[in-house]
C-alpha cells in the first residue's frame, strides 16, 4: 500500500501521482485543524520558552560584563534560545500526533487507501509548522518589545523566520521518526528530556569561545544545536554572517534529511507491520 506505483496499472498510477497534492492538502488540513483545536499543544511551546527567556535574560544579564561578550544586552543574545527550544516542542507534537494515529487505528485505516507515504509525512509536519509560525511571531514580538534590535534589519527578520521554521521542520521529522518507529506516545515524551539536554549542552548560554570548561566547549562544538542557535543569533546580534547562516541552514537541512529518511523507512516498516 505504501508504494501504489507498483500496485496500480500505468494509467491509474499517473492519476495516483497526480492525487499527491490532494492527499497532502487533506492530511495537512487535518493536521492544522487538530493542532489549532488543542490549545494544550500550542500554549506550552509558547509560554515555557518565553518564561525561560525572561528568567535567563534577567538572571544572566551580568554575563554581558565578561570581556569579549558579543552583545550589550543578554536578552538580544538569548533571543535565539526560545526559537530552538520551541522547535524541540515540535518534536513532541509531531511524534505524539503520529503515535496517537497509530494507537487509535487511524493509521491502519489509512493504509487501506491508496495514500502515499510522502503525503502522510508532509501532512503530519503541517501542524508542526503552524506551531512554528505562531512561535516565531510571538518570540520575535517579545524580543522587539524587550528592546532588542535585529542587526540584520527587516530582511534579516524574515530570514530568521525561515530558519526557525526550517529548524521546526527538522526536529519535527525526528519526532515523526520516533513516533512511527515506536508507535508510543510515552516513548516520544521520553525524547523530550534528551532533546532538552542537547539544547543545554550547546552554546545557548554563552558564546563557545567564552565557555571556560574545555570539556563543555568540546561538547558544544560537536553539538549541532550550537550551530542552529548561532545561525539565528547572528541575525539578531551581528548582522549578516554568511558562515553562521550557512552552518545554521546546513545543520537544519541535514537533520531534516536524516529525520525524513528515517521516518520514510519507519513508515514503510510500520505499514508492513500493520
Amino acid at each position, binding site marked *: 500500500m505504501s508504494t501504489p506505483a507498483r500496485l496500480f496499472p500505468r494509467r491509474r498510477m499517473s492519476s495516483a501521482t497526480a492525487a499527491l497534492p490532494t492527499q497532502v492538502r487533506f492530511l495537512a488540513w487535518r493536521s492544522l485543524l487538530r493542532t489549532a483545536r488543542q490549545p494544550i499543544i500550542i500554549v506550552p511551546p509558547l509560554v515555557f520558552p518565553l*518564561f525561560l527567556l525572561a528568567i535567563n535574560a534577567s538572571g544572566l544579564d551580568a554575563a554581558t560584563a565578561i570581556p569579549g561578550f558579543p552583545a550589550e544586552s543578554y536578552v538580544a543574545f538569548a533571543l535565539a534560545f526560545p526559537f530552538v527550544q520551541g522547535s524541540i516542542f515540535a518534536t513532541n507534537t509531531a511524534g505524539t500526533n503520529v503515535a496517537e494515529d497509530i494507537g487509535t487505528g487511524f493509521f491502519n485505516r489509512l493504509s487501506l487507501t491508496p495514500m502515499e507515504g510522502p503525503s502522510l509525512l508532509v501532512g503530519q509536519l503541517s501542524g508542526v509548522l503552524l506551531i512554528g509560525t505562531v512561535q516565531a511571531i510571538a518570540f520575535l514580538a517579545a524580543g522587539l518589545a524587550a528592546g532588542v534590535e535585529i542587526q540584520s534589519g527587516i530582511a534579516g527578520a524574515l530570514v530568521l523566520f525561515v530558519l526557525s521554521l526550517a529548524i521546526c521542520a527538522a526536529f519535527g521529522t525526528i519526532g515523526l521518526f520516533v513516533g512511527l518507529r515506536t508507535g508510543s506516545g510515552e516513548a516520544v515524551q521520553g525524547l523530550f528530556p534528551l532533546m532538552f539536554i542537547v539544547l543545554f549542552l550547546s552554546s545557548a*548560554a554563552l558564546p563557545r569561545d567564552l565557555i*571556560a570548561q574545555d570539556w563543555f566547549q568540546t561538547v558544544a562544538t560537536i553539538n549541532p544545536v550550537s550551530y542552529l542557535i548561532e545561525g539565528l543569533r547572528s541575525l539578531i546580534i551581528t548582522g549578516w554572517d554568511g558562515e553562521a547562516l550557512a552552518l545554521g541552514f546546513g545543520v537544519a537541512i541535514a537533520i531534516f534529511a536524516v529525520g525524513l529518511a528515517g521516518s520514510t523507512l519507519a513508515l514503510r516498516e510500520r505499514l508492513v507491520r500493520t
Partner: protein
Amino acid sequence: MKPRSRYLAVARTVVWRNLHSAVRQPALILPALAFPLFFYMAFAGGLSAVGDLPGFGYYDYNAFQFVFVLLQSAAFGGVFIGFSIGADFDSGFTRRLFLAARARSAVITGFGVAAVIRAAGVWAMVFVIALATGMEVGGNGIDLAGLVGLALIVNVAAFLFAAGLMTRLRTLQAAPAMQLPLFFILMTSPVYVPRDLLQGWIETVAEFNPMTAIIEAGRSLMAGDPFHLLLAFALASGLAAALVVFARTGLRRAEAAG
C-alpha cells in the same frame, strides 16, 4: 496488632512497593537521577566564566551551582513521588489501599519516606560526581550536615505539596500543576549569580522569594561561612508545617471521595 505497629506496617509496605517499582522500572527513577546531574553539568560547566565576574564573591562556581542543584533535586524529588501517587490513583490502587489500611495517613507517610530515600540516593550520586569533577568543599562536616538537613526539609515540603495536590486532583494529568509552581519558585531565586548581581524584575522577585534565603544559606554552609541559617531553616520548616495541613486536608478529601 497495636495501632502504632499497624501504621508502621502500612507505611513500610508503601515504601517497599515504591522503591521496588523504581528498581524494576528504571524509567521511573531515571529522570530524578538524570536531571540534577544534567543541570549541574550544564550550569557549572557551561557558565563557569560567570564565576570570574567582578563582585561574584563566591569561592567556587561548581560549589555555587552544586547547592542549587542539590536543593532543586530535593524539591523535584518530592514532586516526582507525586507522580507515583497520581499513577496509583489512576490505576485504582490507592483507593484499594485506602480500603485496606485503617490509618490512611500511613499511606502518605510511606510515600514521603520513599521520597526521602530516593532523594538521598540522588544527592549521593551528584555529590560524588561533583567532587570527581573538581568541586571544592569549603565547609566542614557539621556545615555539610546542615546543608543536607536543609535539603531534607525542602524535600519533605515539596512532597507534602505534591501529596496535597494529588490527593485533591487524584490523577496523573495534574502533574504540570505540581511542577510549574515549583519550577517558578526555584528559577526566580539567584540561580546563576548571587543576588547582588541580579538585575531587572528578577532582582525584585528574588528579594521576596523564600527560596532565595534557603539557597543562600545552603551556599554559605557549603563555603563554611554560615549566613542567615535561622531564617532559612525557619522558612523551610514553616513551609513544611503549612503543607502538612495542605496534605492532611487533601487526604480527607480523597477519603471523602471514596
